[in-house]
């Protein structure tokens, strides 16, 4: 028996797409929407919903700009997001080690 409690897992991160977004952003300074979509292989609408959730939780920050006259939306992990991701990983690893 383990004392692992799945309820302790961060529900905001505990979704495949949001987890993938966090895993990508932990490695880069920032990433564009199109880059995330290509890496995660999902639709615009689906990704937007998940990004919105992460943004509302304060885990990611959004930056909108124009590059070559085209609008570009870039995302980066906030410190809160980085800590949440690390905690999530630690929690999973702790469970596996038990």
């Amino acid at each position, binding site marked *: 028996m383990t004392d*692992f409690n799945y309820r302790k897992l961060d529900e905001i991160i505990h979704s495949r797409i949001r987890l*993938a977004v966090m895993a*990508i952003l932990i490695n880069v300074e920032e990433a564009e929407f199109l*880059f995330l979509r290509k890496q995660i292989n999902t639709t615009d609408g689906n990704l937007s919903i998940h990004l919105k959730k992460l943004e509302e939780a304060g885990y990611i920050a959004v930056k909108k700009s124009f590059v070559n006259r085209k609008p570009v939306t870039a995302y980066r992990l906030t410190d809160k997001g980085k800590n949440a991701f690390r905690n999530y990983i630690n929690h999973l690893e702790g469970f596996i080690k038990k």
Partner: protein
Amino acid sequence: MDQSKAMEEITFIKKVITDSQQIFVNNGRQYILWSSLAILGILLKYINDLTKISISALWIWIPILFIGWLSTFILKKRFYKELPAKTFVQKIFDGSWTALAVAFPILCLVGFYTHAIQPWAVPSVIATIFGCGYFITGILSDSLWIKLLAVCWWIFAIVMFLIPGEHSVPLLGLMLILFQLIPGILIYVRWKKKTGI
């Protein structure tokens, strides 16, 4: 959630991180810029020698390096704006070429000025550095033809060390066209097609 599910999650995270880390953009602009400037420098040096104006080689190469660095700075600023994500591999790629670009003036200008490096050895030194840059690029992009470019530069460096002479500089110019300018154009055209920029 059981342990196998947790393991699956960790494996998924590792895969996402590994996949995204490996992505980097090489648009070839730097190769075109630096090879064009180097060819211009070689031509000016050739005209200088031919007309016997006898301007010091440093007065040719210092402005060229200054233009190169300034253009690189402007291009990089623009490039980072266009970059979809600055990955770890991108940092290694950019960092490696920046380090090599710093090594160039140290070896070829300071080394030349202090007589630590003989003028006849300069083309070989340049070729050795290019070989290192292309080899790193080939490894990062997992591209055999870029790794072969590195081998060509190193072979040229060895040959020029063994058989130095007046032919070294024009041969370096030819190498720059064949193994720097043309690959740069090819990489640039490919990148343009891929990104649609």
